[in-house]
């Protein structure tokens, strides 16, 4: 459970940092009036905070699944599966999607609606391409006889990529709705916010994918072993 513990420690650090700014040591019974409400005039939009909290939940989900991966890996019947080279291409495509959304976000800030739409389309296409690529990787593996139930390494591979893929599908739904709404009409404040939120979500899913990819390729366990050696 060490991965989950590390993730929770990170979440706890954020919470402690935030709580430290909330005057938890104040004496509310002595304070009357408004002098102590130090909230600034422009808080982040609620949707952005909501997305931050949601990503915390998604992070907990994946870190727990990865913890389970490491615990299950310790048993003797584990034999890693060869990664299809295809996954490198997929990683690239997902990164392209992330870059495209970042581009879209920058262009919304410059109020370039036309370029924003192009960038959104590019991101949408990249997301779809990634999903198709993942399906191809699955097909390649099943054709080579690496079926879901043959080995725990296979089971985890399909489970984790499946979970990640479903999150990408969810992101694509949001992105698709945004693209449809943004088509043929000037972007308003809400749409610009949604572009930014999509970009954050995509960066996060890219990060999760990179962690998973490192996990499947065995680098993650090398790192873990290395850390273990450092500690002992």
């Amino acid at each position, binding site marked *: *459970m060490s991965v*989950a*513990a590390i993730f*929770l420690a990170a*979440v*706890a650090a954020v*919470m402690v940092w935030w*709580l430290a700014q*909330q*005057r*938890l*040591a*104040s*004496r*509310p*019974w*002595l*304070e*009357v*009036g*408004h*002098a*102590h*409400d*130090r*909230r600034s*005039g422009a*808080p*982040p939009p*609620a*949707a952005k*905070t*909501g997305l931050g*909290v*949601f990503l*915390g*939940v998604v992070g*907990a*989900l994946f870190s*727990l*699944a990865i913890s*389970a991966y490491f*615990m*299950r890996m310790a*048993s*003797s*019947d*584990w034999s890693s599966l060869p990664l299809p080279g295809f996954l490198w291409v997929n990683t690239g495509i997902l990164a392209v999607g992330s870059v495209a959304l970042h581009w879209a976000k920058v262009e919304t800030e410059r109020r370039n609606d036309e370029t924003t739409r192009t960038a959104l389309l590019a991101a949408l296409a990249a997301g779809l391409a990634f999903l198709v690529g993942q399906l191809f990787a699955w097909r390649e593996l099943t054709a080579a006889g690496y079926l*879901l*139930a043959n080995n*725990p390494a296979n*089971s*985890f591979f399909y*489970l984790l990529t499946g*979970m990640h893929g479903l999150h990408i599908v969810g992101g694509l739904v949001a992105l698709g709705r945004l693209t449809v709404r943004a088509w043929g009409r000037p972007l308003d404040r809400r749409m610009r916010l949604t572009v930014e939120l999509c970009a954050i979500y995509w960066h996060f899913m890219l990060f999760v994918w990179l962690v998973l990819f490192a996990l499947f390729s065995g680098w993650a366990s090398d790192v873990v072993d290395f850390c273990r050696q450092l500690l002992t």
Partner: protein
Amino acid sequence: MVDVRSGIGEALPPLEVEDVELYHPHSWWTRYVFSQDAKIIAIQYATTAIAIGMVALVLSWLIRLQLGFPGTFELIDAERYYQFITMHGMIMVIYLLTALFLGGFGNYLIPLMVGARDMVFPYANMLSYWIYLLAVLVLVASFFAPGGPTGAGWTLYPPQAVLSGTPGGKDWGIILMLFSLIIFIIGFTMGGLNYVVTVLQGRARGMTLMRLPLTVWGIFTATVMALLAFPALFVACVMMLFDRLLGTSFFMPAIVEMGEQLQHGGGSPILFQHLFWFFGHPEVYIVALPAFGIVSDLISTHARKNIFGYRMMVWAIVIIGGLSFIVWAHHMYVSGMNPYFGFFFATTTLIIAVPTAIKVYNWVLTLWRGNIHLTLPMLFALAFIVTFVNGGLTGLFLGNVVVDVPLSDTMFVVAHFHMVMGVAPIMVIFGAIYHWYPKITGRMLNEVLGQIHFWVTFIGAYAIFFPMHYVGLVGVPRRYYELGEMAFVADSVHTLNAFISVMALIVGAAQIVFLFNLVWSLRHGRDAGGNPWRATTLEWQTPETPPSHGNWGKELPVVYRWAYDYSVPGAPEDFIPQNQPTPGRLGHEAIS
């Protein structure tokens, strides 16, 4: 003496959240059924939770009938017995307590108490309820599925949960159970995001975090914990579904069943236990923290005294929330583990007793020299304190590895957790319903019926669970369908079991009085007025009772003080609402 006037003339800080455009329902359907109003959603959540809770109550009757009078009722065979205990536990913990505290009270109280018009994402909030309802329906469906519901125990430990020896293991039962949990978690996450972000960003002007009523602190912290803990259950459920449906071996070791070698191999049942209890222990506090918060407000209001040690109370809530994530393996002492792990988890478990004890002291010190009104909410709050102390003390026994190992599979554990996370939070739920019902409906609940309900429930619960400790100490195992001829089981145990069962029937019946009261008082209850308990918190200061859509009329409230200005010396009344700038009603010169 505090200068209650300081800081009043200062300029208002800017409005934290711009006054949002509310969704305005256009038809009966969107107003009362597919409503996006947190208050309606709260009532929907609470009604559904109580309804499914009644099913669990009836199941507990059936369990007790078997234990008290074994062999008398042909309806209850061994298989059904296991289905009953599984469903009773699962429903009570997740579909009743979690849903009622967070979905019910969270939805109703958070927007009103922080001074918001509604939750920040009303649409997701509505979806949250309907997904919860779907989870409940899937759960109920398992009663009617071939083979009946799962009988794996509420912890659903593999491998037995998916084997043919367990009821529902090879039928629909376990599948529906796992799907229902997965659906529940998805729905809860939607609601949970709302509760957290509304507290973070929906607060009215002047409502700093340290002015939040402890109810909101409790629900807020519990929601954060739930958002981080439920993913563990989610992962565990998905992996077990894979094992059951697709033949993977996440949790399933090599196993011979009915002389046949199953295709599983190498899986780790302990892995499931880690995931399950990583969720399961925080779950105890997900239920307890809202109860802590609510009970603090009930005691302060009905003792007409500010809560003792507000800051400590807040810190204790946060610390308990944090600590509860590093104690899970104390549920697994008997699963076998490295003794150093056992030592670590025993230590963290016992450390949790410190902030918890601080809270108990603060409740008692709040009562000390208070002007205690023995209203129904206060009675239930007092009952909570004693019950929680009782259950907490046996928890100290069980937190120690050496004491836990012999007691672990006995009725002692059953008595312990029913005291601490069964009876205690339920007491708070009752207290809270008696307290807030006037705000929700505009009418008081009937006092006489309430007194009957309280005394039968309180004394009855002790009559049930005190003897059960003794039954456990003499070694009567839990989870057994019948005891049969066991040398160490004295005759007195059988007598006690019969007594416990009779009491359980009586306490269960008393809840019918409560339900009747809820319905009867809707029409016939005494008119409550806007603030019958003369309470300070914002929900009692709404322009209308019950609060209308949007809660606050034209102007959002502005908060000038903390939530516990009761019996302030020099003030003309014994309470000063949070949105009142000066102690006097009209802001006059009543301060000496």
